[in-house]
């Protein structure tokens, strides 16, 4: 009893901390000049979002978030940024940029306000008519979140799961094709350079 009341007391603070961290670091992603800073800020966003998932009671997704997003995808992105040795983009201010950015921000503000006005009743109100499942928090705790998740993945969602494997195969082939193209281009360039050098 003691711990559960403590959790209900702490929960809002944890949520507000990580939610504001996620939002601030997401804003930092779009305002920082150096792509590397953007990427590092995005890692912070992903970690905060993982904390939010854990808070919702979805440990499975929190783990995947850290393993796949922060661990794999962002490492790849940061590796590519450092590999390309990108300079900080000069945020030269151009008139058409200001107009375009203004339009974008106004548009998104309108979208945000529209969504918020939809939420006047609170989200649970709009979910009232939805079909409820039977995997409550108590069931998750007694049967194990990972077990329930994997069981669903390999029975009810078997076909999408297999289709995902198809998608990953396509991605592998695609990367092989593109990267072989890169090495070929570099090789031809070197070859041309060599022949030119010989000509001299």
């Amino acid at each position, binding site marked *: 009893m003691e711990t559960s009341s403590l959790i209900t007391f702490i929960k809002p603070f944890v949520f507000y901390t990580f939610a504001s961290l996620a939002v601030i670091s997401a804003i930092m992603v779009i305002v920082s000049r150096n792509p590397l800073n953007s990427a590092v800020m995005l890692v912070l966003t992903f970690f905060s979002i993982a904390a939010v998932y854990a808070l919702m009671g979805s440990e499975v997704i929190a783990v995947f978030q850290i393993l796949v997003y922060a661990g794999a995808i962002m490492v790849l992105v940061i590796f590519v940024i450092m590999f390309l040795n990108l300079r900080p983009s000069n945020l030269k201010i151009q008139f058409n940029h200001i107009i375009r950015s203004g339009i974008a921000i106004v548009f998104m503000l309108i979208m945000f306000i529209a969504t918020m006005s939809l939420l006047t009743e609170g989200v649970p109100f709009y979910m009232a*008519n*939805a079909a409820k499942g039977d995997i409550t928090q108590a069931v998750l705790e007694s049967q194990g979140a990972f077990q329930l998740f994997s069981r669903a993945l390999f029975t*009810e969602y078997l076909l999408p799961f297999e289709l995902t494997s198809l998608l990953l195969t396509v991605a592998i082939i695609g990367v092989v094709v593109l990267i072989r193209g890169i090495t070929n281009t570099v090789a031809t360039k070197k070859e041309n350079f060599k022949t030119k050098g010989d000509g001299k």
Partner: protein
Amino acid sequence: MNDMISTKLNEILATNNFGLLAPHLIVSIGAVILMLVSVMSRNAFRNNAVLAIAILCAAFYFALPRDLAQTVTAFNSMVLKDFFSSVEILLFTLTGILVVLISHNYLKKRSTDIPEYYSLLLFAISGMMFMASSADLIMVYIGIEVLSVALYVMAAIDTKDINSTEAGIKYFLMSVFASAFLLFGIAFIYGSVGSTSFSAIKDFAMFNGFNSSHFLYAGVLLILAGMAFKISLAPFHLWTPDVYQGAPLSVTAFLSTGPKIAVFAFLFRFFYQFQNVQPYPELLQDIVVALAVITMIVGNLLALNQEDVKRMLAFSSVTHMGYVMTAFTTHSTEAVSSAMFYFTAYIFMNLGSFALLSVISRDNDKNLNVENFKGMAAKKPLLAFLFMIFLLSLAGIPPMIGFAAKFFIFSSVIHAHMYLLAIIGILNSAVSAYYYLRIIVNMYLKTQNEDTGNNFKEINFAVPEITVVAISFLAVIFLGLQPSFLIQWLSKIVI
């Protein structure tokens, strides 16, 4: 516990029918086989083309509908098979076969003979098939991503050409942006319905109506926006011309037919299940009508002053999707069959003209300018005649198939008493004749300037292209003269 899982798994695997997914499985496994062949075989590029055609023909055979009235679902109602999905799959395999035939010599000429190209093409087609037969938004999402990921690479397949890379990058950035909107829409629908399966969404909408649930409404609109990006309906079309011009011609041929048909398959299946919802959401209907009108007008206006024929065909494909969209607004089964007829017609006339362009093209398609077609009739009369037939069909001039297709589309609109929309469509169709006729005038009535034009001497009209052109030509003429049996067959489609 383990017993429970195995019984559940057996249930999933027993209640389904793998035969129902036969075309999908043939194409997916075939794509993997092609991948292996491209590593092991020495003459992989040619072997893969032959194998790809064989695989697609097998898929075509297995996709032929046996029982027209039957609807079967499988895999925990993730996929379904009915007459509509069978027709879609037939169209995809047909597109695939024609695109393989167009690609082979063209890519060789461009020295882009990458054997994995065919593997990617088959993966894209299997993604399209899964989209067309999906009965759940999860399947739709993964299917469209299989399709898109394969297409990003195909658009950028010519790694020596900067334009091809740019096309790939632009397509990638726009497409993932659109996917995010699509996903957000799916999330909202899931939140309000509690399921992502089409039938559950339909039941929810029938029972609760649209206006009671803002989430469902917002979700449907976001999905429409995301899909409009993917099929480049105006005002979401801005990426289209650059991608179509930059990508290799054979990829452009595929991009302008297959994926659009697949997305329309989803749109018809998903939105038509709301047709009996009372009251039907006014805003949604208005937005769909506005999309149709804007798409037709914008596509036409932009195509009018294009000098590059590939770019012009890109904008004209936007217009063609606008015509289909007018039928989509009517919510009648007649619209579905007329749209399917239109797609059949569009595959033949579009891929026919792309096959001819692939023969004419040189220097990475840089010679495909309207000016360069001057005097073609004198040098290559047969080629010019065939190209004229396809262009006239695209313009919708009788007795070609394009006329019949437009006739069915607009008659379905008129039967739904949407006269203004039909008039706008017919006027647009008349305007579109201008830019098709411009090429024909250049071919027949203008003489060539020797310095700038094509000399049409290096044209190598080989067996694959001849096959495509012959099939398309016969289809364009015969289905144009005798469209009744095809439209009668297609009118048995019930969604």
